[in-house]
């Protein structure tokens, strides 16, 4: 068995040092090493999006990346979306619009939606659906998720 590797990365705004095995994915590292269990495992093949995190601002499936590859990167997980006790508008709208049922896909959707709104502050419905097509939800039929992203976009740009 190979030795663990020392990695330093910025995680949810904090410079963090950790040890992980070379064979551990970023997903496993976040969940089992760093105890950040908000990011979820759904398929381990990059098809469901439940493990989506931001790496240097880009939405990435953390099951397709190794923990050691986080070296020097800026990682944002669902635990880093809120500003202290103040929820991000996306989180708030997901709650108001009843956009989650079981909630397992929600962290991944929030991260993907944030990546979308960061680069495109007023997306059309088609653009939203396209950007979120890599996140699977089995409970909601996506209807209320799309509405929440639309409402969050309005709230962010309208300052509501």
């Amino acid at each position, binding site marked *: 068995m190979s030795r663990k590797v020392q990695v330093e990365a910025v995680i949810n705004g904090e410079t963090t040092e950790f040890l992980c095995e070379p064979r551990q994915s970023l997903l496993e590292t976040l969940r089992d090493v760093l105890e950040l269990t908000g990011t979820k495992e759904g398929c381990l093949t990059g098809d469901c999006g439940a493990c989506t995190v931001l790496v240097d601002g880009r939405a990435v499936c953390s099951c397709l990346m190794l923990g050691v590859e986080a070296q020097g990167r800026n990682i944002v997980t669902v635990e880093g979306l809120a500003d202290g006790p103040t929820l991000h508008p996306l989180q708030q709208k997901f709650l108001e619009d*009843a956009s989650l*049922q*079981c909630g397992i896909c929600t962290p991944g959707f929030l991260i993907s939606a944030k990546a979308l709104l960061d680069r495109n502050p007023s997306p059309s419905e088609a653009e939203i659906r396209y950007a979120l097509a890599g996140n699977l939800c*089995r409970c*909601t039929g996506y*209807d*209320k998720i799309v509405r929440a992203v639309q409402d969050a976009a309005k709230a962010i740009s309208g300052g509501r």
Partner: protein
Amino acid sequence: MAESTQTQSFKVVGTRPIRPDGVDKVTGRARFGADYAFPGMLHGKLLRSPHAHARIKSINIAKALKLPGVKAVITAADLPPLPENKSEALGEIAMNPRHLALNILAHDKVLYDGHAIAAVAATSPHIAEEALRLIDVEYEVLPPVMTVERAMEPGAPILLPELRNPESGDQPTNVAMHLPIKKGDPDAGFKSADYIVEREFRTAMVHQGYIEPHNAVGVYNSDGHATIYCSTQGAFDVRLLSAKVLGIEVGKLKVVPAEIGGGFGGKTTIYLEPLSVLLSQKTGHPVKLVMSRSEVLRASGPTSGSTIKVKMGATKDGKIVAAKVWMAYEAGAFPGSPVMAGALTILAPYVIENLQIDAYDVVVNRPKTAAYRAPGATNAAFAAETVIDELAEKCEIDPLAMRIQNGAHEGSPHPAGPPYRRIGFIETCEAIRSSAHYKSPLAGPNRGRGVASGFWFNAGMQSSATVNIHTDGTASVVTGSPDIGGSRASMAMIAAEVLGLPFEDVRPLVADTDSIGHTDVTGGSRVTFATGTAVYQAAQDAVNQLKERAAKLMDKKPDDLEFRDGAFAVKGNGAPPMTIKQMAGKLARAGGPVVGRATVNARGAGPAFATTCVDVEVDPDTGKVQILRCTVAQDAGRAIHPSYVEGQMQGGTAQGVGWALNEEYFYDEKGILRNTGLLDYRIPTCLDLPAIDTIIVEVPSPTHPLGVRGVGEVSIVPPPAAIANAIYRAVEVRMTQLPMSPPRLLKAILAARQEPARLVAAD
């Protein structure tokens, strides 16, 4: 958006507050089963059969045990002797615990690709996986039986040598059950029909598709008690079934239901739970087992593929006069497909005097099927609702009008006999007929509109609830119903309504099997109905106790007081009433704490009906179907929290769309599953669906204090038939196979045009 057809006169019921567990779920704090970790916890993995059908000649675990980091390896030999081969009432479910145990770990035969044979516990999941490779298994491969037709052929390989049905006598068989239903004289009925339609349908096996894989953490204590933490729809079921498999008393197990990432029926059974306890017992450590996605698809319950033949006759005025059905469902490796439910739902929305249904439960070398949202009904509706559509066309009657004309209503008999009470089927048809969607024109080539209806029973069963009044006048409501769709919010809303408290002052909890009275599964569309009734009664019980206390505090008799808007007032007296808040801090001197309690074995759950309208556009060059617009009308009795009722309607519809257009299990000729991931087991994405419009029809059920009808399941039933009917109007092809995937539809389009299907792969 949703339209509700009834105004409400409640304060909390019918509003849309934010669910209390929501903040934890949007911040990643909520703990799902795989999120649990304990000091010294080990990780478990399962070795699974690479063959669809084989005898196990030997298993050698010696090398695996020697791998550093491996702490235990178990096989079926480590479980107690198998229970007898017979069906038992396990809770309200008739199940064969022997088959359950055999499914969890194979004994002398493996019966599907992915059937579990051994389990390893090690210090890391990676070491556990390495250890699996060191287990040597010798197999004698047997020919696989993959379809109901093959399984029913005389001389077909037999999966379970001890399986018999009353008609097979002493002969081994793969047919576990034949259920006949007959009423009137179908042959005479057909003779009197002006039009007859007869079709044969095939539906592929599909999976519930929850995003969260199965998980369990077992913690065994040296006093012989164990705790299981797992994502489940029913902690009490897990306890009972695990105790059966482990051969221990129910009281030795405690099950803590974690948050659950989707179930849809598939998490009402057990796979990993007893193994997590056994591994914990052997190693002295907590042991966590989590399935990978490929394990979920290979080895956790899908629902049945099926072959269904439907013949229906109508007189030219549109009255259905006779129906005949032959249906065979894949049970998977062990008996128990939902073919009975299929038989009891297939003609349920209609009044038909002469009918005959023959339903067969057939074992095949596929995973043991598990419940999937209205189990058995979607397959059945695909067949019946497309035949009705064809009959309506022959009679030149609008398909909705035909359904209304023949529709079941209060007092009419269900096909299996009992009369309906107050139901809302016809109302859902009328809601679609008068909807903006149905009235809007649909123009353009290769576009079509289709409608279909669905029926589901809804369960009652047992639930318990307690309501605790806190010293500041807020309350908590405790139930044993895991929350898969937002039910916690509805429980708090019902309690708040009865207590006259604001919603924010009532906190709902989902408790473990030691902390709440027996509660049956979250499933069968029963939680708001049955657990909601228990909550309603527990809250009333709390109010009665509060009234006694208030009387003491106000120096009156309880009968002198009346309770309104969360306060007790002296009857006929204008003095300011005493609120719960005001008295909550004084309960000690008025008699003690207030804990309301109630238990129910709920009777009279009203069935649910849904009618769905869908517009499609078909690409005639590829066979791809685009859903342009979708509206579903469903009778909810009374919507406690409309957003979550809409959510159930939309979610079920989306699953129905996937079932209709893309989802299927691909097995090769050796019986090996080829699509074991979510890329090739294709469930709908955001981009595949339009907005799903919902119409909540409220025909209150007379058997619930607030008129609630179960809503969770029925919306999955109509979409495949509605889409098939829409495709017919778009490209004049009647599809009789699910899924209506692009290769299949294209082949049908080309055949209809009599063009050679050169570019299309053989089916």
